[in-house]
């Protein structure tokens, strides 16, 4: 027997309501108007690329990279790495209590939970460059402002992921400890944190990678690290030295990422 409906009369698209069409049109209008207002024109891209690749262009002046000041760059890179490690370490340590206070099961009170979640959201939403400017005003130019900016950024980043990991942890062991009369801290450190350790480790390593990448940019606003030297090199048109800095930064980021992948594979 032939089927009641054939491929010919089956509709290809689902019927949509007027409201759905309005939403789709609105999204399309947003995308098109945004592109028209901000996207670069093709001719300006072509002009820029031609300038870049011309014999006197920036790209040609970058080669060969100038490693004459490699030792100074290396020291500044070490400072950048130290900023990232210090900022990430502080951020991760403070992220744990923030995350505990932000979880449904472990927070002592709904008001405390709401405040903790709000603070984590604020720390995460404001970019680290803005935090850096803020801390330069407080502690002055230099790596200390960078460390503070990275710390706040990492509390936002890791606080959210730590809290999610704690929410998803098996509640059975926690309930069993509660049933024998364990305190809240006892439950957290005996059952919750050991269960979340793989997730915490992965998040912490990602936070460190992110901190190393971010700390290079923080110098651009004066918050210490290699970014200051990179900005100076560009400002003085020392493009060959700028390329040397970029290459050494690239090597550092790749090394940190490789080390972090290796640690992740070993620990988790």
């Amino acid at each position, binding site marked *: 027997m032939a089927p009641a409906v054939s491929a010919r009369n089956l509709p290809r698209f689902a019927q949509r309501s007027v409201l759905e069409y309005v939403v789709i049109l609105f999204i399309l209008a947003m995308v098109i108007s945004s592109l028209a207002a901000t996207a670069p024109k093709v001719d300006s891209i072509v002009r820029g690329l031609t300038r870049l690749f011309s014999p006197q262009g920036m790209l040609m002046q970058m080669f060969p990279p100038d490693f004459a000041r490699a030792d100074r760059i290396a020291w500044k890179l070490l400072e950048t790495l130290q900023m990232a490690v210090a900022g990430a370490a502080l951020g991760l340590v403070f992220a744990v209590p923030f995350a505990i206070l932000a979880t449904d099961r472990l927070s002592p009170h709904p008001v405390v939970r709401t405040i903790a979640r709000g603070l984590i959201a604020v720390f995460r939403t404001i970019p680290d460059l803005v935090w850096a400017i803020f801390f330069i005003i407080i502690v002055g130019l230099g790596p200390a402002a960078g460390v503070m900016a990275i710390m706040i950024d990492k509390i936002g980043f890791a606080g959210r992921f730590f809290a999610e990991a704690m929410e998803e942890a*098996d509640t059975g*062991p926690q309930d069993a400890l509660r*049933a024998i009369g*364990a305190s809240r801290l*006892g439950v957290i450190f005996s059952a919750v944190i050991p269960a979340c350790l793989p997730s915490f480790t992965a998040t912490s390593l990602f936070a460190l990678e992110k901190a190393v990448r971010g700390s290079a940019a923080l110098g651009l606003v004066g918050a210490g690290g290699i970014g200051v030297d990179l900005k100076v090199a560009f400002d003085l048109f020392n493009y060959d030295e700028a390329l040397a800095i970029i290459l050494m930064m690239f090597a550092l980021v790749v090394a940190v990422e490789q080390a972090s992948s290796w640690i992740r594979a070993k620990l988790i």
Partner: protein
Amino acid sequence: MTLVTKISAVATGLSEERPVVCVEHLAKSYGGPQILRDVSFSLQKGVSLAIIGANGSGKSTLLKTLIRLTEPSAGSIRILDQDVCALSGSALRRFRSRLGVVWQRHNLVPRLCALSNVVHGVQSRQSGMRSWWQSIAPQAVRAEALECLDRVGMADFALRRVDSLSGGQSQRVAIARMLMQRPELILADEPDASLDPQSGEDVMRLLSDLARQQGISLIFVSHRLEHTLQFSDQILGLLGGELTLNLPTSAAHAEQLRRFFETEE
């Protein structure tokens, strides 16, 4: 007084000893039909009590209500001379710390070793960070935890992560954690449910022997007729949330009990 006369005396209200557990007119409902209806019973020291009934008859609810993990709707519960329904906050926590509870699932912390999991049992008596992991626990606590593992035959697995143990071995570690609490009463909610028949029997025998050795009472929910007859001194039978059977095991017959397992067999 023999065990049978002890239980019979309690059933007729003639016992001179104060019961360890005394439940009167206990009821529980979640707004709809009643899960428990007018349940009354008592339990003497050193007696092993089995709670039987088909799925949904209220066995686990009764057990959880006894320690207020589920709040009763009506009735009174007196355990270890405490009016359980009147307890709140830290008093309830202190009361619970006197009880050893074994769950269907072992509920151990998977990434920690067996010894750390057993050390956690001491949190019922003392708080502080030195009870969080075996590596920082005081020597006396570690020694006691190892002894508890030894009593359940798991001392050789002390430093093994519990997520590498079998179901039966994990349940033994959970029992060792419960022993670490030095409980005055043991409650077990189908501790053999997730185990193969042999492991299930081993776990039940272990619980029963430990309770007997220490002279403490054991209340266990069972879904296996043979375990009920083998490991209990007194049987409570629930049908549709109502207590329809309360008698010494020696006076019970397999045929008489079979209706309480009907939906499961």
